[in-house]
């Protein structure tokens, strides 16, 4: 039996998505900027894809930029907006638990003289909006918060943040990294008041190599890369047409039956979580219930180390991530787990299970059969006693 439970890292491309992409490789392969019919077909495909993505977040189609990843979307959003607003201020607010794609761009910006506040979070990973409010000052130009944390599934109060920011006298741009949250939780740019939103195709059964950035009409964004401009000034280079079409199809599939999909994932998630709770010396990370992403279950198993667990699960056909999805090979524990107060010796034993609509109950049953066995096996050979942690 196999169970792919690392959908937060990447997902298999849906069959329908592949089928939709195929003709754009071999038949409708034109360059979108060319006037002849093949080119127009490609341009139309980009147009339609913008419409589709826009619809899923209540945006206008002209507000969708296609990129090569959510990472790139984040980089364009953050640097693009702060460069364009440099004259107004140099202060950025984000959180301690953002994805490395945000944090590394922030590091870079600090090097360039921008001041960044990293908000702390509580034990379940929630940002405290009143703390955000305290940090606002007249130099603040951008706030960036993910709507869903990719490691522990916390659904952040982005709507409240958006409201706070809209109430300020001076415009403060609000970027939401929705790479982990898109197609898992509802997202309405108007309701949230987001000015920029990043997405990634390969997290929603679309292809790798494509992302999107929503940019609210009128938001000044400076280019951060240069070169041959095909359709979009902010992302030079020939567009990845099959990829863009694939992203749109993936979004269509995800939102067509959104309730059904997310309810399915919630059921599996809760089953996983209750199963893990029955494993001795285990700790669930992040919130329970409605404030948790339907797709995420994170659990620390005391007395063992995550990579060994990951490898053993793999030998049993189960794919997962260690606590920190992005530092598998670093010795430091995940910055997210640290931020919610998990002790390093516990953090090292953390496994992240992330679901998709394609996971089945059988897979979860199987996982819940294998996990306790592997935990026991690893604890048996561990010099660290779980009860002492």
């Amino acid at each position, binding site marked *: 039996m196999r169970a792919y439970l690392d959908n937060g890292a990447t997902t298999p491309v849906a069959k329908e998505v592949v089928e939709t992409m195929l003709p754009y490789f071999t038949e409708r392969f034109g360059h979108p900027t060319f006037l002849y019919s093949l080119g127009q077909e490609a341009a139309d495909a980009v147009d339609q894809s913008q419409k589709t993505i826009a619809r899923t977040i209540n945006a206008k189609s*002209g507000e969708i930029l296609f990129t090569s990843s959510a990472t790139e979307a984040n980089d364009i959003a953050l640097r693009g907006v702060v460069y364009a607003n440099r004259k107004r201020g140099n202060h950025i607010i984000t959180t301690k638990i953002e994805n490395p794609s945000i944090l590394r761009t922030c590091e870079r910006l600090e090097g360039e003289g921008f001041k960044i506040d990293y908000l702390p979070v509580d034990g379940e990973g929630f940002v405290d909006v009143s703390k955000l409010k305290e940090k606002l000052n007249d130099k603040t130009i951008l706030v960036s918060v993910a709507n869903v944390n990719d490691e522990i599934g916390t659904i952040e109060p982005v709507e409240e943040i958006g409201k706070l920011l809209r109430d300020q006298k001076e415009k403060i741009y609000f970027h939401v990294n929705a790479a982990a949250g898109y197609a898992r939780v509802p997202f309405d740019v108007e309701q949230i008041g987001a000015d920029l939103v990043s997405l990634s195709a390969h997290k929603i059964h679309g292809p790798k190599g494509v992302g999107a950035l929503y940019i609210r009409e009128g938001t000044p964004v400076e280019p951060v890369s240069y070169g041959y401009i095909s359709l979009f000034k902010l992302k030079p280079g020939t567009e990845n047409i099959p990829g863009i079409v694939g992203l749109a199809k993936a979004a269509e599939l995800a939102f067509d039956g959104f309730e059904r999909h997310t309810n399915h994932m919630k059921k599996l998630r809760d089953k996983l979580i209750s199963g893990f709770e029955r494993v001795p010396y285990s700790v669930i990370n992040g919130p329970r219930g409605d404030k948790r992403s339907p797709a995420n279950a994170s659990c620390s198993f005391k007395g063992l180390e995550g990579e060994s667990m990951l490898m053993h699960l793999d030998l049993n056909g189960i794919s997962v991530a260690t606590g920190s999805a992005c530092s598998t090979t670093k010795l430091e524990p995940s910055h997210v787990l640290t931020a919610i107060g998990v002790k390093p010796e516990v953090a090292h034993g953390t496994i992240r299970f992330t679901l998709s609509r394609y996971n089945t109950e059988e897979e979860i049953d199987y996982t819940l059969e294998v996990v306790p066995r592997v935990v026991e096996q690893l604890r048996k050979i561990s010099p660290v006693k779980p009860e002492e942690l």
Partner: protein
Amino acid sequence: MPVEYTERGMLKYTKKLIERFKNPKNVGEIENPTVVATEGDPTCGDMFKMFLKIENGRIEDVKFLSFGCAANIATGDMTADLIKGKTVEEAGKLQIKEIADGLGGLPAIKMHCATLAYRTLKKALTKYKQKQAGGAQARPKG
């Protein structure tokens, strides 16, 4: 637009425009035209030449020659259609928008084509009026 397109982006012609480009009805020259006008310049990539046959203040025939893009040809042909059979006065009231609308719309970056056809028409009508005036003056004198 927030997600800025380039100058080139999303250039798209309507079916109507392409149809006219394919099968323009009014291309060619008129032998012994009442008036001829040319606008544009081949070094800029577009040039438009219009021939009018005017009888009793009414435009009886219109033909044109075009050096330019598909929109140039199509707007020229549309313009010709729009003024054919009209009086000089009526033709003088033609709006650029009517030309574009007649083609089901024009991409923004191609509006200059409609403008070129329009300017050529204006020039031709002015020439015609000057000619008429000249002729009118000339007669008494001559």
